[in-house]
């Protein structure tokens, strides 16, 4: 059997009108004592439930006389329900539901989604629910329901207010944690990596540049997650190629566009062009320039490397023919390659811009 924890409730020694119950409860809940007294007074109008509850708490007093307290709470609940106009069998039904919850508490089940419920508890609660639903009668007077409603409002009002404040604070805290997490995941990890590979200059510089890009996009660009603009997409591709091949890629842009599906082939073709430059040109720096204006988008990928002669490229090299030229053609664009041995290479990719 699970131990039900002792609620830290103690009658107040100094803030007392009768026995210090309201004062003690106010101290435990962290609310104003007058508010608690008002709730009890209103509940007292509901068939004397408030009075019984008061005695129950007096008896409980830090878990000293639990059984008497439990009986008094049950009596208060019965008085409340009767005062609200529920018939005797409805009260029995409510009792069965409470008993069901008690079984859950003591048997260690859970009423949350996915938690296991003891069979006994399910039977008790279902029987209770049927009894309650069968017997909802009409109220005999308006005093008791009105009093209960008033009490609920007083109890729940401040609670909602507090909940709202907590939510605002939680959002602030989450933002701070998000920043901390980002700094940890990226910057600190990168610094650790740099320390460990301090002798490998190419690697350190690649890692540092990648970090710079990520951080910069997060600070000035479109935020975390996948690329949302064409320039971000190209920056991602450039960062990958830098990491894989240890080259430096300088990205310049004039204008930008949202990264729509129709622009994906352009990013992929540009990435392939960067990869080719990194792998075959022997240049240590590659320049990528994105130009997006009125009616077309163009990406230039250039290196000052060894260059090549088109006719000397073996036919089975699919990179240039398929991944760049074929891809651009299929998406309605063009790819032009300018290269000569010793004079570097430039790939120009263009795509007509769809009418908005």
């Amino acid at each position, binding site marked *: 059997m699970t131990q039900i924890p002792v609620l830290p409730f103690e009658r107040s020694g100094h803030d007392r009108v009768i026995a210090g119950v309201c004062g003690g409860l106010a101290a435990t809940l962290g609310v104003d004592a007058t508010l608690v007294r008002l709730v009890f007074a209103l509940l007292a109008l509901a068939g004397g439930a408030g009075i019984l509850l008061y005695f129950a708490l007096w008896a409980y007093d830090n878990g000293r006389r639990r059984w008497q307290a439990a009986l008094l709470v049950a009596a208060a609940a019965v008085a409340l329900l009767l005062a609200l106009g529920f018939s005797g069998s409805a009260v029995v039904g409510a009792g069965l539901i409470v008993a069901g919850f008690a079984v859950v508490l003591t048997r260690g089940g859970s009423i949350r989604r996915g938690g296991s419920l003891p069979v006994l508890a399910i039977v008790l609660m279902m029987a209770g629910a049927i009894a309650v639903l069968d017997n909802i009668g009409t109220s005999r007077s308006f005093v008791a329901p009105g009093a209960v409603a008033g009490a609920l409002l007083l109890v729940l009002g401040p609670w909602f207010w507090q909940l709202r404040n907590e939510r605002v604070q939680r959002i602030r805290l989450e933002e701070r944690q998000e920043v901390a997490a980002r700094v940890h995941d990226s910057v600190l990890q990168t610094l650790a990596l740099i320390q460990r590979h301090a002798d490998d200059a190419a690697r350190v510089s690649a890692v540092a540049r990648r970090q710079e890009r990520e951080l*910069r996009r997060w600070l*000035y660009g479109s935020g975390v997650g996948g690329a949302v603009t064409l320039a971000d997409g190209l920056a991602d591709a450039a960062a990958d190629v830098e990491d894989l091949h240890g080259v430096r890629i*300088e990205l310049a*842009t*004039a*204008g930008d566009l949202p990264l729509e599906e129709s622009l994906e082939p352009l990013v992929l073709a540009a990435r392939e062009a960067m990869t080719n430059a990194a792998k075959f040109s022997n240049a240590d720096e590659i320049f990528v*320039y994105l130009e997006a204006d009125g009616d077309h988008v163009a990406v230039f990928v*250039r290196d000052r490397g060894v260059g090549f002669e088109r006719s000397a490229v073996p036919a089975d090299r699919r990179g240039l023919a398929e991944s760049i030229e074929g891809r651009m053609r299929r998406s309605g664009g063009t790819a032009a390659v300018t290269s000569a041995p010793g004079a570097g290479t430039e790939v120009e990719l263009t795509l007509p811009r769809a009418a908005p």
Partner: protein
Amino acid sequence: MIRVVLVDDHELFRAGVRGELGTAVEIAGEAGSVAEAVPLIKKLDPDVVLLDVHLPDGGGEGVIAAVAPERPAVKFLALSVSDAAEDVIGVIRAGARGYVTKTISSDELAAAVQRVADGDAVFSPRLAGFVLDAFREGARVGDDAELENLTAREREVLQLIARGYKYKEIAARLHLSIKTVEAHVSSVLRKLQLSSRAELTRWAHERRLI
């Protein structure tokens, strides 16, 4: 030897630049903020100031605005990791003769300092892209011609810079002399600095909205 003042709030970065440029130029002084930089530059009267776009108490713009009227001979070269086009353009408009990114190699940085000292403009590919964006035809509305247009040739030169071409390569490609290419770049710089502020403010604002 060219006398240089370094203005950057990162001690580590200043030490790095000092180490790299130490033999090519004379580092006359260093400052980490606008408040430190202004009196120092006025006192030392260097040939070139290497200026960070972002400083804790204002930007590189603040340094240029405070120094330039009294020391018109001092040249400024902006140096930054910042990607925000409007910040970079802001420093250029305040009077910097060029902009290079902090990832530039030390040889290229030394060459850029030399060029700025000689009175030329230094456009990195990224800056060329930013400027083309600022002068983009679609960016202007109606007959509002406050921002003087770039000529077709100037546009061509800027586009080649953005694509990673050096002045020498541009000259060869366009069958011009290097001097002519330099003249075009200086002309772009002048248009950028003289055009009225309203147009570029709108451009900067629109960029923020993208």
